[in-house]
């Protein structure tokens, strides 16, 4: 389960959603995004800061390209 915690003056605020109502204690795992390599930064730069730039899967992309190429 993932919950968005917002920063407050004293720490982070976790909303009391239904699944947490009966809990006395929860463990929060802090996940840190790994720092990006020079190559990934390079890609971000040429993709105008965007990731996941393609909406299609590789198979869809290939099918479409081959259809176009061979006039199918």
């Amino acid at each position, binding site marked *: 389960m993932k919950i968005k915690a917002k920063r407050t003056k004293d720490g982070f605020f976790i909303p009391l959603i239904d699944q947490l109502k009966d809990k006395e204690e929860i463990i929060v795992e802090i996940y840190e995004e790994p720092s990006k390599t020079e190559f*990934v930064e390079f*890609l*971000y730069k*040429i993709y105008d800061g*965007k990731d*996941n730039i393609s909406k299609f899967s*590789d198979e869809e992309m290939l099918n479409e390209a081959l259809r176009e190429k061979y006039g199918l």
Partner: protein
Amino acid sequence: MDYKILWDSNVILDLLLLRTKDNPYVFEIEKYVSDNKIPIYISSSQLQNIKFTLSEHLKNANINANVNDILRRFVETHDVRVLKTPSYIDIDKLYSDDDIENELIRLTAETFDLYILTRDEKFLETVKKKGIHPKDFISFISNGNEKQKINMLDLTRETLYIYHKIEKNMDKVIKESNFILGPEVKQLEEKTANYLGVKHCIGCSSGTDALVLSLRALAIKLKGKEYFDKTDEIITTPFTFTATGDAILRAAATPVFIDIDLDTYTIDTSKIKEYLKTSKNVVGIIPVHLYGHPANMDEIMQIAKEYNLFVIEDVAQAFGGMWDNKKLGSIGTTGCFSFFPSKNLGGFSDGGMVSTNDDELAEVIRMLIKHGGKDKYNVDHMGYNARLDTLQAAIILAKFDIIDDFNERRRKIAKLYTETLKEIQWLKTPIEKEKAYHVFHQYTILLKNKNREELQEKLKQKGISTMIYYPYPLHKMKVFINNGMKVYGDLQNSEFAAKNVLSLPIEPLYDEEIINKVLESFNVLSER
């Protein structure tokens, strides 16, 4: 550590297209392989598919980027290695429902026992234990580290390191089908002669044959006879591989075994001088540059000059080694090299080379490798069928380009070992004499009051291989006892070394992490 992982096209495209939704682990994996210089293997059949698909994705997403720039940057910033897709795919796959691309990737991976990184669930099912899902990549690497065995050498890893060059050279030989004394043999001879700075190099079938051929040619040149007489004595060390002494017997002479010094495990030149005062029958000396450390060639050449002796350098373990900036194998009358697979410069089978500046010896050796004549249908001497195989020459030529780098890597590993092991009281680390350039074919320690077999067993339990080179000195072997040998003195250093040496893993491609594992084991054992 040994990371042999072939990346499926979907994972490579995940990275190139920053597809974090499909593959949330891709940045973590890419960072890990970049930081740890882990190779990214690709089958050659994937290249076009990757390029084409990437190009279409970018076009469709209206991204105005140059595909070539992206791919160039990818290759420049990662250790990308392309392996040839095997031709032996079952042709029936062409008209089955199987995914042919996956089958080609699987076959490529199988060739060198590689794992496959893919998020194609069907493919993962097919390749079973050899498949890695991106989500499991980091734990796979961590577990692999724990279980990794540390062998003396890792020849598969070495082959994979430059397989593209080896494959290209092998393909050329196969295409030209010039399998016996093809142009690659001559190229290797010329390249080695150039490297050593000698007039002649003659390829032959093994390091052992290089010694026999040198001795036979010397008998023909010096005595005008096919073989030496049994009264002719040739001095060598008993602490060596059997071949050194055996070659003397095969040339019909008598081996005289003289002790080694325990600093370098090479022949003790002061004892050669002593022996020469007692015998007038000595015709030559065969010093062995054992483990990659040169014998004292200044002293040996001085003695040879004074007593008019030939010197055959046994360089089987020391390709690239030097004495006083002179390449080993270029100092004596001849140098004898081995291209046995585990040697610093090794082929895929037996092979050898004789180096010399002596025109007459070179000519005779060239005859001896081909049955004994310039014309194989009309021979002059009792020769051998002892040519260097063209395919081996092609492989060795490919590996020649990295020999100096690999020797430097060996020296770096040796330095790492010595820095820690020199603190342990119950062992002696190898040394390098002032004029020597040691190429560490072996990193061999000498144990002092320590049970060698127990130590070997304890290291084995920790997954660390060790070897004993050599457990029996030559003068204790039946072949020499029964076929005429002489010994000078009690040979106590050789016998002590045979009982107490232990060689540790020294694979040029092992990184500091692996060597530290070996050292940690020693530290644990010495604390007890």
